[in-house]
Every structure is written in C-alpha cells, then in structure tokens.
C-alpha cells in the first residue's frame, strides 16, 4: 500500500481553481518532490494532506488513513515543516523543542536517534531565542520540531526558500539521512535544481499535475534537441523569433538563449544560423547541450498548452 494515495482532489478558493483533479501516490521510503512555481498549488495540496484544509471533492489516504475522517490519527504520525518560520521567536531553541515534544506527549530524549545529527548542530545555540537564529539554523530547528515525535511521513513546504546555497546543500544532506532512517519525505520546492535530489517528482502548474516521474526519466523523455547561445539582446531576439518557420521552442535562460528544435537537427541548425544572419543579428556560438529539469518543465508546459 502506498504511503499517500490521492484520488481526484479538487479545491477552489472563490473563482480560483487551486487544485484540479489531482491524482498521485507516494511510496514508502522515497523522497517525493512537488516542483512548481509560486502559486502553482503546492501549499494548498500540503494543507490538504496535513489535514489543515478540506478538499472540495476527491479523497486521499495517508498511511492508509482517510484525511477527512481520521485526521486526528494522521496528525499523530506526520511531521510538518511550514514554508514560513512558525516557531515561537521568544522561546529558546530548547524551549521550542520541549514544547512541541510535549504536544506529542514525547520528549527530546525519546527520539534522539532520529534528530541527533540536527540536534548536534543546534546544541551550541540551545539557549538562544529562536527568533535570533540565522535563516539556516531556524530551518534546522523547525525540522527538529517536525521530527520530534518520530513521524513516519514528513511534509516539508519549501524548506529551502530564502536559505543560502551552502545551507541548502546541508539541508538536503540531512533530508537524505532522514530518509535512510525510514521516514518518507514529501518536499515542495520552486528550485528546479533541487528536484534532481528527489527520488520522484511531480511537476505542478496552475493546479494541474503535468508529470510524475523520476528526474532521470523526465530528462530522458525530453523530446526536442536543445541548443544554447550567448546573447546580449535577448529581448530583440525574442521579438523576431516568430518569423522563424521551423517548429521550435525558445526562451531566455539567464544570459543565454535556449532554443529547442523539433526537426532534424542537421537541417534545423543551419536554417537557424541563416535566419539570424538574414535578420542581421550577431550571435555567439550555438552549442547543443543536455536539458536539465527546468528545460523539461518548460517543454512539458508548452506541450500541455
């Protein structure tokens, strides 16, 4: 049986359809990523799965328990790390932990084996008010609080948003460690690069799940041929691109211009170079590259449209 089984869940807020017919399953022991831009519906789905919000229609089970009827039992066996810092800033690190442990009728010592790696990092600051910790430390404390009752399922809502790259990497190492201790992890993130650290990911956009697969499969399933080109005038380039006849997809990618060809690359590439020259555009070297998750995400959204 799956740890999470979601069937046809819908949720709307007034005129906004936040979730449209969501179906997905999460298996025991995996790190499952919910990847999508802000406003895609990640947090709404999390609120429903953590029994804080009721769906308009559809059903879901968590660890075999129904999210609507068995919500009290579910709350005992899941951990939740919210997207914004939600601990008591005037309470010290230790006091916050003690408090949340007591809410689960547990104690710090009872579950030391699971929180040990994080607790060791927090120990030097245990008497400091939680509000005075650095961003990374705050997240580690919140994670510690979410794990204090040894949940079998852990929900992390954008745990690394606003955290520096070094702390982000550390945080993901900790997640892997938690996974190895037998906890199933569901994590949402707007960062595409983090998606590759998940076992499976669901790409979500405008309340729709576009794709559920392993990161490697998603990259392997990339349909087109991706090329990149440095350019100093992305805006000008974007303006003339609709005059290019061959089937392609293009978008700015940092300082670069990404273009995906769907015809034979041997014909498409020279045609594109010719097109650029005809329009009098100076361009850098065009090179073929491997797509990353972000390129795949953009392609999948384009195909949906």
């Amino acid at each position, binding site marked *: 049986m799956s740890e999470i089984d979601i069937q046809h869940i819908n949720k709307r807020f007034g005129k906004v359809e936040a979730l449209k017919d969501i179906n997905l399953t999460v298996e025991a022991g995996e790190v499952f990523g919910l990847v999508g831009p802000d406003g895609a519906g990640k947090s709404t789905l999390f609120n429903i799965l953590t029994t804080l919000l*009721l769906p308009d229609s559809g059903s879901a089970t968590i660890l075999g328990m129904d999210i609507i009827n068995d*919500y009290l039992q579910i*709350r005992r066996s899941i951990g939740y790390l919210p997207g914004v810092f939600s601990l*008591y800033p005037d309470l010290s690190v230790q006091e916050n932990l003690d408090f949340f442990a007591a*809410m689960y009728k547990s104690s710090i010592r009872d579950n030391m084996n699971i929180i040990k790696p994080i607790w060791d990092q927090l120990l030097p600051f245990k008497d400091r008010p939680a509000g005075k910790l650095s961003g990374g430390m705050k997240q580690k404390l919140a994670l510690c*609080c979410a794990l204090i009752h040894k949940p079998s399922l852990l929900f992390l809502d954008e745990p690394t948003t606003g955290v520096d790259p070094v702390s982000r990497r550390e945080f993901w190492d900790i997640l892997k460690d938690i996974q190895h201790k037998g906890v199933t992890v569901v994590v949402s993130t707007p960062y595409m690069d983090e998606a590759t650290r998940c076992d499976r990911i669901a790409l979500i956009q405008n309340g729709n799940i576009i794709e559920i697969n392993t990161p490697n499969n998603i990259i392997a399933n990339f349909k087109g041929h991706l090329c990149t080109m440095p350019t100093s005038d992305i805006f000008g380039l974007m303006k003339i691109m609709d005059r290019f006849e061959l089937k392609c997809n293009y978008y700015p990618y940092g300082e670069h211009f990404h273009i995906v060809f769907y015809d034979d690359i041997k014909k498409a590439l020279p045609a594109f170079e010719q097109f650029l020259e005809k329009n009098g555009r100076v361009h850098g070297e065009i090179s073929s590259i491997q797509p990353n998750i972000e390129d795949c995400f953009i392609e999948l959204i384009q195909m949906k449209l």
Partner: protein
Amino acid sequence: MKELRMILHKEMIHIMRDKITLFLVLAIPIMLVLLFGFTISTEIRNAKIAIFDQAKDSQSQTLIDKISSSGYFQVVAYPETESEIDQDFKDLDIKLAIIIPPNFEGSLENEKMATLQIIDDVSDLNVASILNNYILAICHDFINEYNGQGLEDGSIDIVTNMLYNPEANSVYMFVPGIITLIMIIVTALMSSITLAREKETGTMRMLLITPVKKVYVIVGKVIPYMGLSLISTIMIIVISVFVFKMPINGSIALLLLLCIIFMFTAASFGMMISAISKTQIDAMMVTMMGLFLPTVLLSGFLFPLDNMPMIFQILADIFPAKWFIIAIKDVMIKGSGFFDIWKYLGILILMAIVLIALSLGNVDKRK
C-alpha cells in the same frame, strides 16, 4: 494534562519575557486608580474659602467649626465687609465665600429659618457645584444637630440620592469601574491578541497539526491572563482601601468570588473574540469597539444609565459590566451578602457559559 501544563508554561514564558507589556499590565491599574483618585477625582479637599460672619453668635461659630473641620474646606480669611470678600477672591484665590447673616441664632430660634449666602467662584463650574453640595450637606448636618423642630431646608432629595455616599465620595464610583476595565483589558484583550498573534505568525498551524486538544490551547492561553488580572484587581482594591479609605462593608471572600466570576465572563468574551478574529488588529478592534466602549459608556460607571434612551438601557443589559458594577458596589458599600447579589452572579455565569459554548463550537472547524 501534560500538554495543558506545557502550554501554560509556554504562556508564562511569553508573558515574563515581554517585559514592557508585563510592566504596563501591572502598572496601568495602579496608575488608573491613582489618577482617578488624586486628579480626575470629583472630590475636592481643603478648598480655600472665606467666611463673613455677621452674627458672631454661638450658632454661627458652631457652623463655622463644622465647615472648617469637615476636611473639605480651609477657612483662610474672615472678612468684615463685602468688598473684602471681593478682595479675597482675587488675592487669596478662594473658591467660595459664605456670608452668615446678622442675628443668625435669633432667626433660627424664632423664625425657624435662616438664610446663608454663598458666593461661588464659578470659573470652574464643576468645582463650584461640588463645593455647593458639600456646604449643603454640612448645613443639613448642622440643622439635624441643632435639633430645631420644623427646620425644612428642602434638601431631602439630596439626602436620599446620596444615602450611601453622603459626601459624593468619588472613589466609590470609580473603583468598580476601573476593576471592570482592567479585567476586560487584561483578560479579554490580552488573551485574544496573543491568540491572534499565534494565528498571524503561523504557530497556530503548528499547534493545530499536533494531536493536542484545541480546548487546551485556548484554556492554556486564557488562564495566565486571568491570573494577571486577578493580581491587578487585588492591587486596585488594596490601593482604594488603604490610600482612598474605601470601605469593604461586605465579606472579602464574596468580593473575590464576584471578581473571579466576572473574570470568567471577561475571559469568555476573549475566547469569543479570538474565535472570530484572524489578526491582532482584528482582535484589538473587536475588543475595543465591541467590548471596551460599551463597557465605558453603558456600564453606569461614567454616565448614569437612568437618563439614557430605552435602546441604550437594553444594550447595557446585554454587557456584563453593568451587572458586575451593581454587584461590586452592593458588596463593598452596602455590605450586601451572597443572597442579595446571587442574581447578578447568575447573570454573569450564564453569559460566560453562552460565550464559551459559542466559541468552542468555532475552534476546531476545518474549512
């Protein structure tokens, strides 16, 4: 129960670490009592006056003694002509002058009446009318003691109105009012604001996601503030008894019981407010407009209810403050016992039960 103990402990930490709020909560009651007692007081002591005694007989001397020993007046001059009185108003800053007519004793003896002339400094109307009332009361006393038959002075009405506060002692009026306000500020406002703060900062979500009973969360929130407001109330009563000589004619145990019951009513208002407000601003506005203002305006504490239009009198019945103030005055001043005020206690308890039921029905709903 371990959870409830922990929530209480956490709440105490919040209170103890927020030094400024703690200081304000404890200092405001003291400040209010002292302010009302010493400055906003409608009571005037040692007002400077002058007496022009044209009679200089034994009765006029008795009246002068009564006036100067009342504590309200300090006779600073004994002018001998009317123009001297004018001078005294200007030079000595007297608030009032009394002219005792010639043959004062004779008039009382033979005609059974005498006319006292009082000249007020009406630049402060309030002060003047208060001082006039003092003089009237003292004259009334004087006449009673004089024991002259048939000496009507038309002050019977005043006597009945001021039966329990013959000298318009203002401390009797404001202490119950201040206790009411403090209980509402500390118990209802503080607990609903801090609960709304948990909603704002997201810690409420963290609590909701734990299996802890929501009743514990709310009760754990309210109890510490009830404790704080009980401390404040006791401080107010101690100050009013020892500094302002307010009597406690009834039993102290009954007084405390009454305060604790009102505290529950105020706390249940707080719970109701927290159930409907999502942010601290909401909580503050709802408490101010929905509870604090009606309490100030419609409790009979500042404005007499008898003169209000019917609609406001009915509104006043809905809020707990009116009943509490009636009851606390009965206990402290009239010395009423439990059986005199049980009706008011019943009303307050009933209000608390209704409000708690309403707000608990609202607590654990998911949307």
